[in-house]
């Protein structure tokens, strides 16, 4: 279970949005360690505007539209003594940055036999369900999961955004953070402690239950919690797990839960082919097949591009109804 976050009355936490927590984590790390820099497009205006007011131009770098190379510049800065946070903004731009992320950041330590250290964070935000069409609506984390040497995070609460981003900045390896824009305005209690860290590689049981395990990723977490609430009224006890770190995945937590419930529903907004759900399903089949009472269910985006028209896009992503139906199928 997540560590209980104390109420704001005792001053140990404050209520803030996921987006504010993202900003807060960066401010704290920039203040703590002068090697931390932020690099990204339009950082002087969007999101990072307050960072520009607070830190000098040597710390906050507004980049030209050169995603491939400014990401590589970040990698070069990381291997020569800095700890950059590279903000790639919209997740689809990760494809442009994928060469320096995959061929350089992920591989350099290994290929140099441990001579290089690559402490760098790659941030991006995932828009979907926003009528932006296919080139601005990607959720590309599954592609990067196939790359050794990367740590991949997908926080779903404001507190975890702060704690995971801070852990990422302090980590000596390349870490990717995929933010879910649907979570940006969502508020929650966030510890004020500047040493509040959420460990990379540890999942969180958001709700304990006995009948069915739901593993949900990023923005799908909220609908999973709603489904658990709704079905609880019918006497169905659902355990909801948030892996938080997609790689390395906390498979032990999921296996233990499936051993208890015998039923697994996987919910995520990425396309279904070779996504995180597919990986979790494979791990469960390898490690906990005998515990399964029913086949694993996946609720994901289908293998088709995200269309522009809301009339088409509205049908694409997991919903409470689809998730509840998947749960009922197992009972």
């Amino acid at each position, binding site marked *: 279970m997540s560590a209980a976050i104390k109420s704001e009355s005792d001053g140990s936490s404050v209520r803030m949005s996921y987006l504010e927590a993202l900003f807060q984590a960066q401010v704290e790390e920039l203040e703590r360690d002068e*090697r931390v*820099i932020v690099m990204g497009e339009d950082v002087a205006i969007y999101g990072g505007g307050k960072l520009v007011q607070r830190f000098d131009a*040597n*710390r906050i*770098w507004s*980049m*030209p539209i*050169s995603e*491939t*190379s*400014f*990401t*590589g*510049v*970040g*990698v*070069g*800065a*990381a*291997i*020569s*003594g*800095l700890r950059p946070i590279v903000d790639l903004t919209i997740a689809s731009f990760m494809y442009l940055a994928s*060469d*320096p992320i995959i*061929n*350089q950041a992920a591989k*350099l*330590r*290994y*290929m*140099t*036999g*441990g*001579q*290089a*250290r*690559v*402490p760098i964070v790659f941030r991006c935000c995932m828009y979907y369900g926003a009528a932006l069409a296919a080139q601005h609506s990607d959720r590309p984390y599954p592609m990067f999961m196939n790359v*050794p*040497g990367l*740590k991949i995070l997908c926080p779903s609460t404001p507190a975890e955004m702060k704690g995971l981003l801070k852990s990422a900045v302090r*980590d*000596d*390896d390349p870490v990717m953070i995929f933010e879910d824009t649907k979570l940006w305005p969502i508020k929650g209690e966030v510890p004020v402690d500047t040493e509040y860290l959420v460990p*990379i*590689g*540890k999942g969180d049981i958001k709700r304990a239950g006995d009948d069915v395990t739901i593993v949900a990723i990023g923005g799908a977490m909220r609908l999973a919690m709603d489904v658990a609430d709704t079905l609880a009224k019918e006497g169905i006890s659902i355990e909801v797990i948030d892996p938080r*770190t997609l*790689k*390395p*995945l*906390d*498979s*032990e937590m999921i*296996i233990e839960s499936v051993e208890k419930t015998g039923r697994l529903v996987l919910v995520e907004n990425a396309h279904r082919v070779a996504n995180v759900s597919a990986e979790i399903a494979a*791990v469960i089949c*390898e*490690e906990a097949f005998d515990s399964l009472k029913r086949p694993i269910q996946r609720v994901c985006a289908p293998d088709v591009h995200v269309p522009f028209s809301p009339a088409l896009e509205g049908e694409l992503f997991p919903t409470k109804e689809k998730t509840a139906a998947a749960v009922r199928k197992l009972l």
Partner: protein
Amino acid sequence: MLLNSNKKQEAYRRMLRIRRFEEEGTLLYKAGKIPGAFHASIGQEAAIVGACLALRDNDMMTGTHRSHGHPIGKGADLNALMAELMGKATGICKGRGGSMHLADNSVGIVGESAIVGGGIPLATGCGLSAKVRRTDQIALCFFGDGAVNQGTFHESLNMASLWKLPVIYLCENNGYALTTSVERSHGQPSIAKRADAYGMPGVTVDGQDVSAVYAATSIAAERARDGDGPTLIEARTYRFDEHQVGLFTPGTPYRAVEEIELNKTSRDPLVLFRSRLLSEGFDEPELGAIETEVAEAVQNAIRFAESSAYPDPEELYEYLFSQPILSPASSSAKNS
């Protein structure tokens, strides 16, 4: 800036170390003792060494798939380089890098990228890092004529110029990207002229003349250290061997046999520099001593490499992470 007497000796030593290392390496490769691919720098030694000698020990460098010359040019020990070529545990990259990636951080080489153009943003980032950390380090970026047509070249030179980063972009223009000539792939065949587009000086030098490369790089280094920004240097050089040792190229030869022979007989950087040294007052015994010393160093490196053990397959996962996270997922992945 001219090479002083000590640096001339060192230039000859390093060029010769590259040449002998590559010659012996080629034989070992053909004998099956070096696995994978072997891209020799023979013919390009002056471009490499002239540039490296203009750097300080703590300056940073990135290189290319033709990676053997860069660490040797920057002063690296040969033993760990040869051991790496043979895939040994004592290799500079512990057997994880091989011929295309001989990066030796101890002499400032942060990476040798076998993705053409991949090192250009990295060197630019080293320059940005030096600026942020307020050191007077500079970064030297080696790349070939083929890399000039990658987007990373344009994007990186733009950023370096914009922020006046302390970077030297040194193009080893050997005339051919694998088999494709500059004439057949560059709209603007003068690589140095491209500097104009980014608002930085562009210089063309004879890449077979170690003194000329040194002089041009020294000026660029001073400019970079003074905060005046980057320079693009095009060193016109020539690759004596095939793109890759033993590579079969079908069809009509992409470069004439006469062209190769002419370069080998009249444009060999070591022959040119040796006769220059003799004409400037160095004597045969002095040069002979360097030649003997280099031959011994290369033989020592071969002995070291051959007598070294191969890496233990149990250590396959070593060096993947600086901070491994020992989750059940990663351990089950290891077991599979």
